[in-house]
C-alpha cells in the first residue's frame, strides 16, 4: 500500500476529482459545468478501482458517463439555446459559502483529530465481480428485483412526463 507509484497515482486521481468538482460548482457557464462533471465521474471511477471495486467502477462509467451525463447535456440543450452562453445566476451566496466552509472544515477536523478507525485484518482484495454475483443472487435478491421494478416504473414515468403533448398546444 505504501508503494510510491500507487500513492502518486492516487493523489493524481484525487486531485482530478476534487478540482473538477470545484469547477462544476464555481463556473457560471452551464455547458462547462456539464463537461467538467465528466472528469469528476471518471476520477470517482478511478478511485473505485483503488477501493478494489472494479465492477462498480465499470458501472459508474457506463451509467453515469454514458447515461446520466448525456441526459444532463440533453437537458442543457433542450432548455438553453446553444449559441447564447447561458450563465446560471447565483442566490444565497453567503449562507452557501458558510455551509461549504463549515461542513468541510468540521468533517476534516473530525477525521484528522480522532484516531478511531480500526480497519479489519481482511481487506477486500482482487476482483469482486464473482462475489457481487453471489451476493446479488443470495442475500440481495429481493432488493435486486425491487430495483428492477423501480427502474421500469421510472423509465415509463419519465417517458410519459417528457413526451410531446399535442392536445396542450
Amino acid at each position, binding site marked *: 500500500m505504501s508503494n510510491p507509484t500507487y*500513492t502518486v497515482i*492516487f493523489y493524481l486521481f*484525487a486531485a482530478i*476529482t*476534487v478540482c473538477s*468538482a470545484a469547477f*462544476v*460548482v464555481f463556473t457560471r457557464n*452551464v455547458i462547462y*459545468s*456539464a463537461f467538467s*462533471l465528466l472528469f469528476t465521474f471518471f476520477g*470517482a471511477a478511478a*478511485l*473505485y478501482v483503488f*477501493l478494489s*471495486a472494479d*465492477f*462498480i467502477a465499470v*458501472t459508474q462509467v457506463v451509467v*453515469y458517463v454514458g*447515461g*446520466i451525463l448525456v441526459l*444532463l447535456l*440533453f*437537458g442543457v440543450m*433542450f*432548455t438553453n439555446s446553444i449559441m447564447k452562453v*447561458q450563465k*446560471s*445566476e*447565483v*442566490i*444565497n451566496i453567503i*449562507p*452557501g*459559502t458558510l455551509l461549504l466552509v463549515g*461542513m468541510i472544515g468540521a*468533517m*476534516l477536523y473530525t*477525521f484528522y483529530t480522532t484516531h478511531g*478507525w480500526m*480497519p*479489519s485484518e*481482511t481487506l*477486500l482484495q482482487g476482483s*469482486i465481480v464473482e*462475489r*457481487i454475483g453471489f*451476493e446479488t443472487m443470495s442475500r440481495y435478491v429481493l*432488493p435486486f428485483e425491487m*430495483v428492477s421494478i*423501480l*427502474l421500469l416504473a*421510472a*423509465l415509463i*414515468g*419519465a417517458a410519459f*412526463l*417528457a413526451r410531446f403533448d399535442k392536445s396542450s398546444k
Partner: protein
Amino acid sequence: MTEQLTTIGLNHYLTISAFLLGFGLFAVITRKNAIVVLMGVELILNAANINFLAFSKFNGGMEGVMFALFVIVIAAAEAAIALAIVINIYKIFKSVDVSSIDSLKE
C-alpha cells in the same frame, strides 16, 4: 506525518468524499439553474458512494459494495425523472430558474 500522507488509508477517501459533498451542497443551495442543481445532487450521490466503498474495503465485507450498486441504479432513475420534470417546467414557464417557479405561492 509523512507516513500518514504516503500510506493511503480510510481518511484519504473520506476527505475526497467530504469535498464532493460540500461542493454538491453548495451547488444545490446557491444555483438558480435547475440543471446545475441536479449536477449538485449527482456530486452528493458520488460522495456517498465513495464513502460506502471505502468503508466496505476497509471492513472487508460486501455490504457497502452492494449498497453502492443500488445507489447508482437509483441515481439513474432519479436523473431520468428529474430531467423529464425540468423539461416540463421549461415548457410551462419558459425558464429553468428554480426561484421563478412559484405559482403555488399566494
